[in-house]
């Protein structure tokens, strides 16, 4: 168990990076506290797997340092870092039984047999694999194999962190929920630092205490699921998290009021004038838009209403700009004259994609 720190870290797969696009990971500094459950969330190619490989030691970063408990491990090879990794596709040793699989990392490190036995039993109990210890690992289902992979990490008492690289990719949908809940329980029980890479927001938000959202090699926000939802630090986070994502509308902001194509929208706070060279947008989540009546709110044209059974998603246009809103299941959406009212406290202002604070 350890505190992981990335200090001024950046990485490029090219030998002589010049342009910003040459960098797979742009400069970042980050601290992951001991015993925390973190998720690295982002679309494919955003650099999350590169970052994970840097943590595990499979990739050495071009610049900056990786520290485990304030010890510099940047150039240490994987086997000396005391980390564990669960891969996308289950990695198990086919010829061994479940028990031998779990014992393998300890036997390689020359731990005495009695101790290995005790540890294996303990971890098997935690992962609910006790009944399967004597079975051959090759005949098991994908979710059990993933549990064995995790177990091989947890079995080492001194393991500093467990890294997950999209571990649920090959798991059947109905087992995903179950395994995710188990991961969460195992995390609470073992108190090991865990870093979970995924492109699935549900996985990230249910697993992690803190989510690191990555976009194009950059960390755009680190926060609790609630922070990511309520106050996205970047329009990308707004889009990526939430279903449907946040509405982002070009606007001009003056004090406590924003104007979108001649329509006025109240802001909960008062803003300083923003540099005119920057692209100003306001962001508001569909959850914080409600149907209005009379002359209040934004006049929109409803294009489509999607009924998800629990709520209605209104797909509309505001002078040609797409906008989405959520309505209760029992609300009726009139065909014309619809107005949407935003909760002023939930409307955020963005300049060049970055959140502007009042």
């Amino acid at each position, binding site marked *: 168990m350890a505190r992981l720190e990335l200090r001024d870290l950046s990485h490029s797969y090219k030998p002589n990076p010049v342009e910003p696009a040459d960098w797979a990971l742009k400069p970042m500094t980050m601290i992951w506290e001991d015993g925390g459950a973190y998720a690295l969330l982002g679309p494919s190619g955003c650099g999350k797997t590169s970052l994970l490989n840097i943590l*595990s030691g*499979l990739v050495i970063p071009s610049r900056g340092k990786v520290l485990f408990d304030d010890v510099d491990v940047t150039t240490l*090879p*994987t*086997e000396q870092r005391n*980390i*564990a*990794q669960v*891969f*996308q*596709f289950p*990695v198990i*040793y*086919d*010829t*061994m039984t479940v028990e031998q699989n779990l014992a*393998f*990392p300890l036997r*390689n*490190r020359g731990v005495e047999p009695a101790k290995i036995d005790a540890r294996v039993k303990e971890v098997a109990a935690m992962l609910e694999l006790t009944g399967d210890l004597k*079975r*051959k690992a*090759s*005949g*098991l*289902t994908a979710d059990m194999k993933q549990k064995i*992979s995790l177990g*091989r*990490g947890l079995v080492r008492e001194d393991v500093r962190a467990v890294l997950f690289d999209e571990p649920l990719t090959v798991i059947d949908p109905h087992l995903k929920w179950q395994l995710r809940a188990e991961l969460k329980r195992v995390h609470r029980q073992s108190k090991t630092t865990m870093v979970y890479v995924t492109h699935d927001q549900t996985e990230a938000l249910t697993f992690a205490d803190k989510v690191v959202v990555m976009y194009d090699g950059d960390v755009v926000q680190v926060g609790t699921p609630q922070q990511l939802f309520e106050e996205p630090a970047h329009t990308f986070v707004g889009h990526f998290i939430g279903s449907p994502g946040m509405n982002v509308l070009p606007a001009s902001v003056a004090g406590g009021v924003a104007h979108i194509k001649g329509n006025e929208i109240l802001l909960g706070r008062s803003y300083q004038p923003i540099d005119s060279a920057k692209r100003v947008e306001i962001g508001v989540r569909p959850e914080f838009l409600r149907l209005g009546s009379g002359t209040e709110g934004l006049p929109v044209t409803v294009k489509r209403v999607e009924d998800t059974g629990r709520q209605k998603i209104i797909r509309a246009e505001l002078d040609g700009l797409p906008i989405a809103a959520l309505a209760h299941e029992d609300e009726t959406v009139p065909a014309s004259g619809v107005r949407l009212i935003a909760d002023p406290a939930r409307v955020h202002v963005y300049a060049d994609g970055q959140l502007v604070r009042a």
Partner: protein
Amino acid sequence: MEKPLNNRAWFLVMPVALIVAFNAILPLMTVVNYSVQDTFGNNQFFWNGTGWFKDLLDPNAELGGRFLAALGRNVSFSLIILSIEVPLGILVSLCMPKKGPGVAACLVIMALPLLVPWNVVGTIWQIFARTDIGLLGWTVSHLGINYNYTNEFFSAWFTIILMDVWHWTSLIALLCYAGLKSSPDAFYQAARIDGASRWSVFRAIELPKLNRVLLIGVLLRFMDSFMIYTEPFVVTGGGPGNSTTGVSIDLVKIALGQFDLGKAAAMSIVYNLIILSTCWVFYTVMTNVDAPDRPRDAKDGAL
């Protein structure tokens, strides 16, 4: 259930049945027929029952002694070349580059010996190992070692074994290389994380991956080496004495040299049965060894 009975479809199989009968069953039956008869030429045959088979399996009989000795030499030869070629092939495959321009070069060079016809391999080594004009023979004998494959037992065996290793190690190496290429990188990364030594990686990841290809490789090499004829025939002619005479060479001597068709037929049948049953036993054992302990219950899946 009412099932229409119509066996006319069998006629569709007739052409194949005829061809198989013409090129396999009838010749085989001829051999079986010879094996229970004796002849002194002139196309006159005399019934001999199981006489040849009794002789063949009796170590004290002339035929039996000869057959069992040749069989013993064949078994030793196969075991020796397998115990050299399999580990060596695995080792070579582990050392081959995994990517880059070296791969193509390696594959071509490794494949070359496999493309050389048997009698040409024999001829190459017959000359290569000669002490007067062959590079190998000349060098070894000038090192002060008594090396002469035409009149010395160990030299003869050394030569044919070395020749077989030269000719066929590539086959094992290429098969293993293909097997190794199929294991994803994640396995090696996981092994590093688990702190596995090079030997553990080989035992836990690489060897299990090679299981299947090695099964095929060992079967192929066993059958081939157990039936070997051309190469030792060209190099040593089965000598010195009978020391490199395998069953195939002996069979040809009896059938075509002495024209003892009955003895030769009995010998070929026994020889064939030995090869078939060995391969069957080997295959069955190997496929059972790596079968999973029990399939997952259907009930588990339904719940």
